């Protein structure tokens, strides 16, 4: 259990954002009680502007009045502050690998898949090709591990929440078949382990609402 001596943990987030969701998942995995505040990005709160003046984005974790921004940085802070159910290994090399994969997800893989799902007719073919290449990279990395971290869910798995959950919704809306059992059996299998994990299952946003949200965005 997390220690809670007059701790105040607040999360400023957006329910539909996988980046924001990463923080929900980490806090829930550690059993850290927190207050969630839904930000309206069209009308940013004073707190958001105060706590993340550099980027003015969510998620922002505020711990005892101290703000931390950028989801991967927040995840490491959470792991270092609440030591139960560690997200990172103690071994420096394993930690470096986990950081590498989380960063590669953010820098390369997520954007390739996102672009493919939102691509127009003209750019579609190339975008889809890049998305499939990105998924192949993950397929080669997951191999036969249950989770990216090995036997237990860790930092990379949380960072890959977009792959485990959002991709299915977005590709359906886009009418694409990117992540399927046939094409990427190992990533597919991982995604099933991910969404069926007892804590993750409760921590992900509801599928129907997420679908409706992105469908509405798609028709704009």
């Amino acid at each position, binding site marked *: 259990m997390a220690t809670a001596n007059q701790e105040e943990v607040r999360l400023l987030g957006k329910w539909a954002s996988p980046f924001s969701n990463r923080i929900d998942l980490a806090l829930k995995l550690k059993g850290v009680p927190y207050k969630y505040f839904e930000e309206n990005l069209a009308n940013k709160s004073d707190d958001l502007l105060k706590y993340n003046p*550099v980027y003015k984005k969510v998620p922002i974790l505020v*711990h005892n009045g*101290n703000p*931390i*921004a*950028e989801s991967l*940085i*927040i995840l*490491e*802070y959470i792991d*270092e*502050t609440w030591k139960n159910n560690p997200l990172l290994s103690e071994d*420096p*090399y394993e*930690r*470096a690998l986990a*950081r*590498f994969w989380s*960063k*590669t997800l953010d820098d*390369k893989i997520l954007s390739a898949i996102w672009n493919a799902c939102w691509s127009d007719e003209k750019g579609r073919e190339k975008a889809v090709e890049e998305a499939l290449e990105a998924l192949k*990279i993950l397929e080669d990395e997951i191999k036969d591990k249950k989770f990216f971290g090995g036997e237990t869910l860790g930092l990379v798995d949380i960072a890959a929440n977009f792959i485990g959950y959002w991709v299915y919704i977005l590709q359906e809306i886009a009418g694409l078949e990117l992540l399927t059992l046939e094409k990427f059996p190992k990533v597919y299998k991982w995604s099933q382990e991910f969404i069926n994990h007892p804590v993750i299952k409760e921590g992900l946003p509801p599928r129907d609402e997420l679908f409706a949200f992105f469908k509405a965005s798609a028709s704009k």
Partner: protein
Amino acid sequence: MADEVILLDYWVSPFGMRVRIALAEKGIKHEYREEDLRNKSPLLLQMNPVHKKIPVLIHNGKSICESLIAVQYIDEVWNEKSPLLPSDPYQRSQARFWADYVDKKIYEVGRNLWTKKGEEQEAAKKEFIEALKLLEQELGDKTYFGGDKIGFVDVALIPFYTWFKGYETFGNINVEKECPKFIAWAKRCMQVESISKSLPDQDKVYGFIVEITKKFGLE
């Protein structure tokens, strides 16, 4: 058993310079291997198959890619001297945040200063100075971003100083005039041995930029 440490690098890369500084700061014996980026070595392709980029740190046959990840790895493995990250989790998160800010802002915007023209270049100039001013604000009255000694953010940022002559000449800006505190910090860093011995001469880097702009018709 002696550690085998190899760094695959390219002399002018600010990302490579970060790892050089970390290795020097910790006094780690290593082999420096210069890569020809137009003809990447089999070792580089094997050790960084995903991105095929330098720098790559190879420690006893295992590769660590991405400069800030390599610097953190070095800090964690050779932890008996010169800590680069603070021990407090909140301060660590702030150091990571600002190093990440350098990654997001300084490299891309700096690059636009010497590769773009007209409106795009003007926008880059404005963004670049704003970024330096924000960093000045973060530095405050400290000697280094790390406090009394250089830390993670200093290591992340100082390599770009070697590119300033290029940024200033091609971008037509005067950093010292706009951000004197920044330049004062940079000069203090250049007095630190692990930094000065790890960075190439500004004139040599400038020469490199001139060559590239001629080659690709960017003047």
